[in-house]
């Protein structure tokens, strides 16, 4: 037996096995960036109008809903309803698009997950990154619209990042849960498709919180998106509107949404950490 001699001996190290994040933080962020960029390119590759489409979707939805709720149902007594609706829809589309892409994201990257030691968390996070990028771009025309509508800039606009953080947080958590569960339960995609509609009407987007009947309000408390919409109404559109706590009727009721929000985040971390090592074999 002839074994070649190498100059130096390398030390043996324990191999940890697959995980959600393993492999060093620089590698993690480089991969995240790379996958996000290619995801973004992929989405619009082969489309003639490219990025324009990410504006068209919320715009069409906005126009239709605006006609329905101002011409047919005649919702009245809501100051600046069109801009409120537009802002809500842009936020909601971001949530909706990221989560529904995330559902299949791990499976869509099967080729990589099955053959390499890839930090699993990168995949749903890349969807979130792409979503954030789209959202920021979409907010530009929204603010142009807000100004054109006659709303003067106010200092609370500077608090927008807080709202975005809250939105991104819950979006990420839901994306993690869905992407991990979908590997084993393909029903998740269908269920989430239905949930999209439920959430659209079950969030204070088409109507402000206080216009909803008592029973609906109670249901809305359990929606972690509710504080995001109510607070953005006060900070961005209408300073005379109540803040997120006052709108729902005090801290006790407000804390329900906060609790649900926190529960979703904790569940997300728990599920993803538990499922990550097994994702490759369950695909």
């Amino acid at each position, binding site marked *: 037996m002839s074994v070649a001699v190498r100059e130096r001996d390398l030390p043996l190290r324990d*191999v940890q096995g697959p995980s959600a994040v393993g492999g060093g933080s620089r590698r993690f962020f480089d991969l995240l960036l790379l996958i996000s960029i290619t995801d973004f390119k992929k989405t619009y590759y082969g489309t003639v109008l490219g990025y324009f489409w990410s504006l068209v979707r919320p715009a069409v939805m906005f126009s239709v809903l605006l006609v329905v709720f101002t011409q047919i149902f005649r919702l009245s007594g809501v100051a600046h309803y069109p801009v409120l609706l537009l802002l809500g829809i842009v936020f909601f589309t971001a949530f909706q698009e990221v989560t529904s892409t995330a559902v299949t994201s791990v499976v869509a990257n099967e080729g990589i997950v099955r053959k390499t030691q890839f930090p699993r968390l990168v995949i749903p996070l890349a969807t979130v990154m792409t979503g954030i990028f789209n959202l920021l771009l979409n907010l530009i025309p929204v603010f142009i619209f807000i100004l054109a509508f006659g709303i003067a800039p106010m200092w609370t606009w500077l608090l927008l990042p807080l709202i975005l953080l809250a939105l991104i947080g819950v979006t990420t958590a839901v994306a993690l849960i869905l992407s991990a569960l979908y590997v084993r339960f393909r029903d998740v995609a269908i269920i989430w498709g239905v949930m999209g509609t439920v959430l659209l009407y079950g969030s204070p987007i088409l109507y402000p919180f206080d216009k909803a009947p008592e029973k609906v309000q109670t249901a809305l408390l359990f929606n972690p998106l509710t504080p995001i919409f109510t607070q953005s109404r006060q900070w961005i559109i209408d300073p005379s509107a109540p803040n997120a706590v006052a709108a729902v009727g005090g801290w006790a009721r407000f804390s329900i949404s906060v609790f649900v929000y926190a529960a979703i985040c904790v569940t997300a971390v728990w599920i993803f950490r538990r499922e990550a090592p097994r994702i490759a074999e369950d695909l």
Partner: protein
Amino acid sequence: MAVDVSTAAAPAPSPGVAGRSLAIDVRGLEKSFRLPGQKIDSLKERVLHPTISRDFSQLRALDGISFEVNQGEFFGIVGRNGSGKSTLLKVLASIYRADAGLVRMAGRLAPFIELGVGFNMELTARENVQLNGVMMGLTRKEAARRLDAVLDFAELNEFVDLKLKNYSSGMLVRLGFSVMIQADADILLIDEVLAVGDASFQQKCADVFHDLRGSGKTLVLVTHDMNAVDAYCHRAILLDHGQIVHEGNPQEVGRHYLRLNFERGETSSAAQASAGGPAVRLVDIWLEDAAGERTNSVELDDDIRLRAIVEADRDTPAPTFAFLLSNADGVHVFGTATQLKREAGEPDLLAAGSRAKVSARILNPLGSGRYFVDFGVNREHSQTDNVIWVSKAADFVIYGTQAQTGLIALENEFEAVIEDG
């Protein structure tokens, strides 16, 4: 032609592992999968059978695997389909998590598993090479710089911006292999690369393996090609049902592998079925050269020397031993049989527990090409009462440079002269 049968010694034990510093250390690795068909794929089943996840049956893909690979060593893993080779590599490469056991490794690892390094088919070669580089721990800039080297090696420069889903399967393997080689890792895990690819690519792989052997890199090679194991590996293991059934030098492991392949399903005559397994086992079969060394090739005109060792698990009266040669097209070119050679008064019996060595020297009139050897044992000097029959138990090549073609090499005198006047 002469066939002589005598009792032979058991084969020598496999050589031990040299005491160098280790590149891979695997201890007691276990991995089970849920058995197919029992996998719960929808929530409804989960809701209807909430407890089923606890009592599904398990498939033990790896069942207590322990081995060590030295730094700089080339290590072969062979085994039948489904024996757990790819699963083992996936555990080594941190793609699957082991249920139990310990894996330790020295240095950076580059896996090439089931013909790929993890490509996204929707992306171009350029994007994939960059992605893979980053995955291997390079920065994005370094990874982009590596692109040319990878494409040059794969000879795919023209296709750099083609999406991988439009690549041919051979091109994909080329690209993947090239990415892995250019990653410059310390340990290479290679699963089945030799199965695909055209002749020029196979030559390239051979060259790479040759170069790597001197470089101190460690290579784990999974393949079904025993010649490759023989040619490249210092040592090999044979997996069967998730266990290491043999460990040692490549030739020996290769022989065990062939036996494992052909013993099953080939020995199912009615007689044995009723008696529970074959009465005789083929322990070893090989080809020798004139000096008595094992070989895989015979020169044109040189004799073919076939050897086999059989062991009887039960008494086998009046055995007949047969070799049958067929060529690469499956044409039977020659068969021969003999009976037990014995002194006067000895019974014509291969007794339970005894071994027989079968040797045949065949004067060789065969043309050059690849040949397969079938081996069989019959009872009671019968033509039909087959105890075992092992198809393609061995194979060899007849080579030569004479300007002749055809199935057989006939003695000939042949000349061409200018005719006078």
